[in-house]
């Protein structure tokens, strides 16, 4: 079992994606199927961008087991007021700055759901959000 941990700074679009990039390198070294790697890093990257876009700070933990990758993204931030709405394609509360970066189209969480075998989202408004995803292989 391998565990990777990363710190994400809210609002930092210069380094957003570093955790996903490092995870991708490790998964390739482990010779995990390329389709599984792509599903994992696309969903992880969407999560990283969400933390950079919405939260104050966050932690990402990736655990690679024998036949499963688990990603836990925990942030401190404004949280999600209505998770059902946030899961709808096209719903977004992203700022103009985030949209200028090419994101904020309301496709992040739906795309994470599409790529992960399991997606769980828990959020407390004013406190933060925890996202747990798993990818089977």
């Amino acid at each position, binding site marked *: 079992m391998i565990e990777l941990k990363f710190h994400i700074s809210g609002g930092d679009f210069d380094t957003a994606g570093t955790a996903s990039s490092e995870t991708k390198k490790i998964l390739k070294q482990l010779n995990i199927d390329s389709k599984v790697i792509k599903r994992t890093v696309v969903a992880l990257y*969407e999560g990283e961008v969400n933390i950079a876009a919405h939260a104050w700070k966050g932690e990402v933990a990736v655990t690679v087991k024998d036949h499963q990758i688990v990603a836990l993204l925990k942030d401190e931030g404004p949280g999600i007021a209505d998770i059902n709405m946030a899961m709808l394609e096209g719903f977004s509360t992203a700022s103009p700055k985030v949209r200028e970066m090419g994101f904020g189209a309301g496709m992040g969480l739906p795309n994470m759901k599409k790529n992960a075998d399991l997606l769980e989202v828990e959020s407390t408004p004013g406190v933060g959000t925890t996202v747990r995803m798993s990818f089977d292989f």
Partner: protein
Amino acid sequence: MKIEKIIPLLKAKIVCGERRINDEICNVFSSDLMSDVLTLDSENILLLTGLANVQTIRTAEMAEIHYIVFVRNKKATEEIIQLAEEHEMVILESPFSMFKASGILYANGLNPLF
């Protein structure tokens, strides 16, 4: 179509990835919306975009896209080039608009994804 043929068609300049100039491209996707790019299931595509920032390269990295054209005179910064080289990507800069660049490539037989 090889990258080396795409370069004159788009009056483009290659800013990194010269050693992949003979790589073959079949499919093209044009978008400034990285959220859209991240939903693509296809790989080995050429991305036309007017969005030239580090997250464009990060998005391409995650989506397994190795060929990017920055349209309407958008320039790749040193940071972009460094990251793109690290991931063995080809970056072209074209003076044409997204519409014109897309039209030229479509007219020359490259395929859309949808």
